[in-house]
C-alpha cells in the first residue's frame, strides 16, 4: 500500500470502533481494519452477518464520527449511496427525488439514467406507486445522478427475488463499468460480490478486520461459470473458518 496514494482512491484505516452497551461496558465492533480501494474499481466487503459491515459503512459515509482511525474519501468526497431500503421521499415523485438528491444533474443526464434503468414511464409517479424493484432502481438512479466520487451500496438487492436481483445486478454492473465509478459494495451474498467487484475484502467476525483481499481478474461482464465456482468455494471456505 503506497502511503502517498492516488487522490482518487479510498483509504480506510480504523484502529478501533466500539459501542457502549446498555448494560455498561463497551462492545468492540471493529479493530485494526484497513483497506484501500483503487480509483475507478469496485470493492466488495464480504463477511459473516453481524460482523460490523453496516457500522463500517456508517463511518465511511460520515454518519458516525465516533471512532479511532482515519477515513480518506476519494477527492472531492462526493458520495452517492444506495441504502438497504430505498429511502425515497414518499411525498415527492421519482424525478423530484432525483433532483433533490442531485441538484446539479442536467436534464440530459437524468434522461439517460431513466432510460438505462427502465424508469422513463415512472418519472412522475410517487414512490408509493412503484414496485419494490422499481423503487430500488430509483435509489440506484439517485446515487448515480450525483456523479459520485464514491458510490456506496449497502446490500442493495437484499430481499428481492432471485431473478429480479440478478437483473438489477447486471444493470448495476454495466453502469459502474461504463462510468468508472469508485464503488464500495457491502453484501453477504458471495455470488453478488464476485459478479460485481474487482476485489473482495473478506472480513473476520466481530471485532472485524480485513483477513484477505481477493482480486477478481475477469471483467465483470464476462465471467465464466467454472472460474466463478472455484472462487466462490475458496471464499466460502475462508469465511467459514473465521465464522467458527
Amino acid at each position, binding site marked *: 500500500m503506497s502511503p502517498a496514494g492516488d487522490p482518487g482512491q479510498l483509504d480506510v484505516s480504523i484502529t478501533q470502533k466500539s459501542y457502549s452497551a446498555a448494560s455498561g461496558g463497551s462492545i468492540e465492533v471493529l479493530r485494526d481494519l484497513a483497506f484501500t480501494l483503487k480509483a475507478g474499481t469496485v470493492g466488495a466487503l464480504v463477511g459473516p452477518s453481524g460482523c460490523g459491515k453496516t457500522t463500517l459503512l456508517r463511518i465511511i459515509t460520515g454518519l458516525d464520527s465516533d471512532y479511532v482511525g482515519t477515513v480518506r474519501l476519494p477527492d472531492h468526497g462526493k458520495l*452517492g449511496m444506495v*441504502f438497504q431500503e430505498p429511502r425515497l421521499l414518499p411525498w*415527492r415523485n421519482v424525478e423530484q427525488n432525483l433532483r433533490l438528491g442531485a*441538484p446539479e444533474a442536467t436534464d440530459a443526464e437524468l434522461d439517460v439514467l431513466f432510460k438505462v434503468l427502465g424508469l422513463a414511464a415512472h418519472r412522475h409517479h410517487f414512490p408509493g406507486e412503484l414496485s419494490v424493484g422499481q423503487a430500488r432502481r430509483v435509489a440506484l438512479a439517485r446515487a448515480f445522478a450525483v456523479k459520485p466520487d464514491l458510490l456506496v451500496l449497502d446490500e442493495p438487492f437484499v430481499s428481492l427475488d432471485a431473478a429480479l436481483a440478478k437483473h438489477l445486478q447486471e444493470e448495476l454492473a454495466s453502469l459502474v463499468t461504463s462510468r468508472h465509478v469508485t464503488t464500495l459494495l457491502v453484501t453477504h451474498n458471495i455470488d453478488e460480490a464476485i459478479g460485481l467487484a474487482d476485489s473482495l475484502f473478506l472480513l473476520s467476525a466481530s471485532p472485524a478486520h480485513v483477513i484477505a483481499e481477493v482480486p477478481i481478474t475477469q471483467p465483470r461482464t464476462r465471467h465464466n461459470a467454472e472460474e466463478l465456482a472455484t472462487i466462490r468455494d475458496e471464499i466460502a471456505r475462508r469465511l467459514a473458518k473465521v465464522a467458527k
Partner: protein
Amino acid sequence: MNAALRLFSLFLLVAAWYAGSEIAGQRLLPGPQTVGRTLLAEAQSGALAFHLGATLARVAVAFVIAMAAGTALGIWMGRSRLADRLADPWLVALLNLPALVIIVLAYVWAGLTETAAIAAVALNKLPNATVTVREGARSLDRQLDEMAQVFLMSRWTRLRHVLIPQLAPYLAAAARSGLSLVWKIVLIVELLGRSNGVGFEIGIAFQLFDVTRILAYAIAFVLVMLAIETFLVQPIERHVSRWRPRAA
C-alpha cells in the same frame, strides 16, 4: 346524497331555531327571519364588513405568529432532549394559564394596543401548536435524515422536502384546532380592549341586551370560517396528501 344529507341537517337546525324562538319569545331568541334582516341591514351599512375585516385581520396575524413560533419551538423540543427538558415547564405553565389571565395581563403591561391584543391571542394558541408539532417531531424518520445528510442536502431542502412533509399531518391538526381557538379568543380580546371587530360589536349588543345583533354577527363569522375551511384548508390538505395511496 352526501350534500343532500348535509342540507337536510342544516334545515333541521334552522327549524329547531325557529321552533325555539316561537317558544322562548323573540326577545330571548329572535327567529331566523329577524336575524337575517339585521344581518342584511348591517351588511348594507358597511358595518358588518368593517368589523368582520378587523377581526379577520387579527385572526390571521395572530394565527400566523402562533403557528410559526409554535412549530419552530415544537420541532426544537421534539428533536433535542435538552430543549424539551428546559422548555417543558414553561409550556405546561402556559398551557394551563387561562386565556383571560393572559389577555388581561397583556393589556395591563402593554396598554390597550393592537400589539398587546395580538400578542395575547398568539400566546394563547402557541402552546397547543407546540405540543402537537413536538409529537410529530419525536416520530421523525431517522433514515430519511441520514439520507439527506449523505446526499449533502441544503438546510432549506431538508426543511422543505424532508422535515415539513413528515410533519404535515401534525401541522394540519394544529392549524385546524388553532383556527377555531384563535377566533374565539380574538373575540374576547376585542370585547375587553378594542373599539372595533366582531367582539366589540357583540359587547355593545350585550349591554343593550340585543340578542338579534349578537346572533347576526356570530352567524356571519361562522359562515366566513366555514368558507375558509371549505375553500382554503381542505384543498390545501388534499394537495399535501396527494402522494398517499388511496385507501381501498
